[in-house]
């Protein structure tokens, strides 16, 4: 079978999108932004469980940091209020700073861990902070694996669709 290791450049040349997995939000802590660390079954063969969980946990940590209510956020809030919120026109909020960090982290993870395995993470910010979208790419050369992948998922989909009807 074709070697599964890709760089992002190779990915774009040779891969086709097979499916997407969505990691949903975990609301058990309230409205704070946290994602479920449950390992999606579709990724079983693609990536080690521990790597995935670590990624999600780190992201959760970032979001918790962004939404943390504490001394510095109060200060920022009071200062903003005192200036009738005009200060937001020139200053970046703490949340925005953390979002930049998150974006960088995701890119980093993609380059180092996910792209070599034919996966791609999408920043949750682009999906309304609802899901972490993981795109799974199939190799063009390993047409056997892609057809088997598609047949299994389409049969699953057919079953699901029939159930819904």
């Amino acid at each position, binding site marked *: 079978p074709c070697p599964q290791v890709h760089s*992002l*450049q190779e*990915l*774009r*040349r040779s*891969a*086709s*999108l*097979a*499916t*997407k997995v*969505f990691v949903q*939000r975990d*609301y*058990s*802590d*309230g*409205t704070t932004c946290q994602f479920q660390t449950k390992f999606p079954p579709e990724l079983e063969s693609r990536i080690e469980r521990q790597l995935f969980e670590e990624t999600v946990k780190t992201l959760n940590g970032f979001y918790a940091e962004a*939404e*943390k*209510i504490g001394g510095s*956020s*109060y200060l*920022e*809030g*009071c200062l*903003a*209020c005192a200036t*009738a*919120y*005009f200060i937001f026109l020139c200053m970046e*909020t*703490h*949340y*925005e700073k953390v979002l930049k960090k998150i974006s960088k982290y995701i*890119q980093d993870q*993609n380059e180092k861990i996910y792209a070599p395995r034919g996966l*791609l*993470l999408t*920043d949750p*910010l*682009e*999906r*309304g902070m*609802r*899901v972490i*979208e993981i*795109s799974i*790419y199939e190799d063009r050369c390993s047409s056997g694996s892609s057809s088997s*992948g598609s047949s299994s*998922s*389409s049969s*699953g*989909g*057919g079953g*699901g*669709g029939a*159930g*819904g*009807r």
Partner: protein
Amino acid sequence: MTPGGGSGPMKDCEYSQISTHSSSSPMESPHKKKKSVPKRKWEVFPGRNKFFCNGRIMMARQTGVFYLTLVLILVTSGLFFAFDCPYLSEKITPAIPAIGGILFFFVMGTLLRTSFSDPGVLPRATPDEAADLERQIDIANGSSSGGYRPPPRTKEVIINGQTVKLKYCFTCKIFRPPRASHCSLCDNCVERFDHHCPWVGNCVGKRNYRFFYMFILSLSFLTVFIFAFVITHVILRSQQTGFLNALKDSPARYPFTETYSVVCFFSVWSIVGLSGFHTYLISSNQTTNEDIKGSWSNKRGKENYNPYSYGNIFTNCCAALCGPLSPSLIDRRGFIQPDTPQLAGPSNGITMYGATQSQSNMCDQDQCIQSTKFVLQAAATPLLQSEPSITSEELPLPGKTSLSGPCATLTLGQPTPPSSMPNLTSDSGLTDIIPLKEEHEGHQFLTPEEAPSPPGMLPSGSPITHSHTMHVLSLASQDSLHEDSVRGLVKLSSV
């Protein structure tokens, strides 16, 4: 209307774009736009909002009452500064107009912030997400639906020991996060939805609640301030010259004084009352929506409590007013990417079947475009620079369209099958599709209706639209290729 319009002379392109604007698929127009500016996302935003300043300002559709608010505040304050302040600053202290000025400035600032900012709108689901959710719901429901309508979709979550039901929004195709609600006036799901306020011409939600509260608080102070000093002014004058003479003294002012005293008087009571109410809401960490529905009241049961409250009033207040401000999720000023539609509405009927693999786009060609886009997007920052040739490589795919089954029935209660080119259509198709259930609520101060249980399906409509869609698709797909090869490298900056 030729699909390959891009190959014709420039004049033809523009002419045909204008003449078939309403009926042609939007795939064609972006293609012609390779010579013009690509669209920003606010231009195709599916909700009922108005945008100004190229997407920087966002308001609800009906803004008439907002202008009334502005006029009332400006006129009342203006008259106060013009007629009462000179006298008062002489007689008592110049601090009066100074403080008044600061208050006025604060009121206007917070009002404009409340009205112009994004209240916390949740973007609608992408077709892939929607398809994935639908599939999961199908699996969860099993075959229990049979012949009758499936029950409304809800998910239960335990938050801080309290069971909270998350409802599925049929318009936005998402499970609403806790405390979010769908505003029927703006047709958006809004996070931590408080209410839709016509006075500020916008919804009040997570991102602008603190501005709203500051606005009504400062407005209370301002109205009380103005009212008090107008009375003081009249009293002082009447001490000098007698009460009636004080009023007669400046005949031009007489009607003004009365008018804006009356305005002030009524607004004092209503605004102070509203401020008091919202102070209570903040201190108990509830939204107007929750309070009106009695979601956390003890009347529902002894076990019922608010899971979001931090336990003490001070923390609740600080969290609401000084907590971190989350960013806008709808990226109004970003540019539209060539492939993935911004929302899931019209494409839903097509996406459902065999759509388990994100072949939620209608055919493999679109899928490849999307895949190319994703790859390019992710890789774009340091790595990728060009090669539109990629798209042409990806394109000649096996022509199997997965359209065989789609939109035959819309089991899950989508009211309208796609009536227009789903892929890049965002606004026009969807607004037609918006079910009537959202329309009928007129009352604006109270919480708008949430989506009721799934509306009836229109299976009879689907075969017709199915064929129509197939036709449109074949035309459109060619253009999508052209267009994508041009636009394939527009990278979303947020990646």
